[in-house]
Structures are given as C-alpha cells and as structure tokens.
C-alpha cells in the first residue's frame, strides 16, 4: 500500500483547480464580451495563486528540492519531466494572462470616463478581447497537457490499478469539476444566470461521470491480484466511503436541487457544494496514492 503523499495531493488538486478555472473562463469567453472583466481578473489572480502554491507543494515531495530544475532533463521518456515542463509553460502563459488582466483593468478605467469612446478605442478593446481569449486558450491547453502528463506518470506497468486510462480521466474530471465550481464561487455576483446554469449543469455532468467511471474502474480492478487488493483496501476504508458521501452523493443531490431552483440565488449552497467536492477530491486523491499496490516479489525474507 502507498503512503499519504501530501505534497502530491496538494500539487495535483491545486494545479487542477487552477487550470480548471482558466478552462472555464475560456469556455465562458467563447462568445466575445460575455466574460465579465472583473471575473476574468479575479479568476486569473486566484488561478495564479493556486498554481504557484501547487508548484511550491510539489517541491516538498523531493528529497532535494534545491535540485528540482534537473527534472527537465529527461523529456524523451519521463512523463515527470514533461509534466514539469508543461506546468512551467502554463505558468508562463499565466503571466501573459495576468498582464492581460491588468490591461483590461486599465481599459475599464478608461471606459468609465466621461469622454466619448473613439473608433480606435473600440478597435483596441476588440484586440484586447481577442488577446484575452487567445491567452486563456493557450493557458488552458498547456495546463490540460500538463495534467494529462501528471496522470501519465502513474501509468506504470508495475501498478495494475494505475496502468490504465483511469488516472488521466480522474485528473481531467477533477479539473473540470472543481474548475467549474470554483468559477461559480468567484462569479457569484458577476456571472449571468445562463452562465451559472451552464456551469451547474457541467458540474453535475462531471460528478455523474466521475461516479460512473469509478464504478467501472472498480469493477475492472479485480482483473489482477494487486488490483483486487486495491479494491479491497478501498471498500474497507472509511476514507473511501467519506469520499463517496462528501464528493459524489451530497454534491449530486445539492447540484440537482440548485438546478431545479435555478431562478433563486443560493451562493451559500454553491459554496458548500464546492467545499464538499474539494474535500471529496482531496480524499479521493489521497486514496489514489494510499490504495496503490504494486507487483512485487512474493517470497519470504
């Protein structure tokens, strides 16, 4: 069985939330000018902080964090090298986004002035929106590739429970789910009702998909001796049932209730769902590491 890998749990979950927020902002920005400038700025700031914390947390996993830069040395075959490169590129793209968000803030100040808007100012605004969308797109794609690389690190022939498409799907689902919920929390007062509805439906879809995938994943685990041990560990662990209750069942019911009464604003309920899903995903990620059983020498010693 594995260990509580706190640095890795924090790195993966925080990194996935950060990328998820950017991804949702990009999605909301698909029809130009529908993304509130203030939400864009807040989203970029929060995702940047989370990304920085994630990268910082990842260092604590290393025996020698001061030499972490060397991890870029083996891009040819190591998914860990690729992950680090892609996350650094994501961070660089985020810096561009941050700069964009500052520009947007300046333009908003100009727009609020009493002077009439000239044609050149409108053209500059359109250009800024295009740049914003491009920045969000590039950061999202790099971030998603980074997350896929994170997952591929664990696709090891030695660990049957990981040696499948499961890690990639789970990591991407966490990104989509927590990204949408955190964007909902950030945009409580800034999102349009249609956008809130879309994000709630997306969150519900991700939760259902996550639950169904886990059922399929669990049923496939019994195909090997090590996989069966993983399954047995999960089913006998109170943490797993806490994860199921807090991360799947409760959010599922609350999200359905929120969607049924979507006309009524319930920011506190959205916050509760987000916190529950965060806790569920952290427990889920802890179980991911704890329940890993590798093929090993089965002998006395």
């Amino acid at each position, binding site marked *: 069985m594995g260990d509580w890998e706190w640095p890795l749990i924090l790195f993966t979950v925080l990194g996935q939330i950060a990328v998820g927020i950017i991804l949702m902002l990009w999605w909301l920005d698909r029809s130009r000018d529908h993304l509130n400038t203030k939400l864009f700025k807040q989203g970029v700031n929060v995702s940047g902080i989370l990304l920085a914390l994630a990268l910082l947390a990842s260092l604590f996993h290393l*025996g020698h964090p001061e030499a972490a830069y060397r991890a*870029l040395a*083996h891009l040819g075959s190591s998914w860990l090298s690729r992950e680090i490169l892609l996350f650094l590129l994501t961070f660089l793209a985020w810096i561009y986004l941050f700069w964009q968000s500052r520009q947007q803030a300046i333009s908003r100040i100009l727009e609020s002035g009493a002077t009439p808007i000239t044609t050149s100012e409108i053209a500059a605004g359109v250009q800024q929106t295009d740049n914003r969308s491009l920045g969000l797109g590039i950061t999202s794609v790099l971030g998603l590739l980074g997350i896929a690389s994170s997952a591929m690190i664990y696709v090891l022939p030695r660990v049957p429970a990981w040696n499948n498409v499961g890690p990639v799907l789970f990591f991407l689902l966490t990104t989509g789910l927590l990204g949408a919920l955190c964007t909902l929390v950030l945009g409580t007062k800034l999102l349009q009702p249609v956008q809130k509805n879309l994000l709630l439906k997306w969150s519900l879809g991700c939760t259902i998909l996550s639950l169904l995938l886990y059922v399929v994943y669990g049923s496939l685990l019994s195909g090997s001796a090590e996989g069966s041990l993983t399954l047995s560990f999960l089913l006998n662990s109170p943490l797993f049932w806490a994860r199921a209750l807090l991360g799947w069942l409760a959010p599922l019911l609350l999200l359905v209730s929120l969607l049924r009464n979507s006309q009524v604003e319930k920011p506190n309920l959205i916050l509760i769902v987000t916190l529950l899903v965060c806790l569920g995903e952290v427990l889920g990620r802890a179980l991911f590491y704890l329940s890993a059983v590798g093929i090993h020498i089965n002998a*006395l010693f």
Partner: protein
Amino acid sequence: MSKQLGFLHNSEKCVGCRGCEMACKNEYQTDATPQWRKVFQLNEDAFSLPTRMFFSMACNHCAHPECLRVCPVEAYTKRDDGIVIHDPNRCIGCRLCTMACPYDRPQFNPAKKKVEKCNLCYQRIDKGEKPACVAACIPGALELVEINDSLDQKTGVLKTLPGLPSPKITTPSIRFIGPKQGKQIRRD
C-alpha cells in the same frame, strides 16, 4: 548495446547464508536501511513438492529498465555491457523509480534523501574482477554471466521463479537454476 551482463543464481547451491548481502554492504559501506542485495526464501509450497529454496536478488540490470524510463533527471544510464548505473549525484529523490521497479531494488535512503541501487560493481568488472557479491558467495551459487540465447537454451536455466513478477515487464537480466524436486528430505 553489444552485450547484456547479468546474474545466474543457482538455487541448488544457495544455502541462504546472506554472505552476498554482507559483501555488498561491506564493499560500499551503505547505510542500514537500503539493501541493494537481498536474499529471499521462496514460499515452500511454490513447487509440487515442499521445497526450501533461497534466491538472492539485487538490481537486475533489466533490458528494458523502468527506472531508467521514468527518471526525470537522467540519473540512470545503461552501459554498452548492459549494466544499469544510477548516479546519486544527479538523483533528486523523487522516488518515481522505486514506484516503477517491480523488484523494489532502487531503494530510497531516508538519511541521504536519495535513491540507491546496485551498479553491478562496474568498477570491479572494469578491472577484470568479479562483483563483490559473486566473489563472496561461498557455495558459488551466484555467478556473473552474459545473458544471451545460448544461456537461455541450456537445460535447467529459468527466466523466472514462482513468486517473482513477470519478466515481461522489464526483461530482467537474471537467470535461475531451480531446485531439483524430490531431492530434499525434511524432518519438521
């Protein structure tokens, strides 16, 4: 890679004295926790007749080493003679190789916060000497051999033993000579 060096372990000769373990520790003065070489006893019911059998295992210098594939800092290299060398100066202690090796042979040293493993005494081999474990094996159960088809075609040479991970994962460079069934008489 022109050839592949590896180990041939003869279970008929091995008495489980752990002299190879000690020779390895003496040669490199390693800390207490990591064990580059380890002697295992197979489960007694692994064969059709009860069998008391030992095997000694260090890094298997696999033909397709997972440690080398996953290492992000290129701490692992494979020499022309097939020896997989781990360079502790490059290691950053990410422990990914310890997760990837089905034989648990790269081991994390908590004191140095780095991974260590057997480098098949390449410096001794380069001088024409035997690895420390092979040189110390009193019954001559452990040999340094070249892993090739002619070795695999010899009668009694096995690629794996019961209880060992499938050799398909990493193609380990170790061969075994298994116990002769029915030879042992036990009085428990």
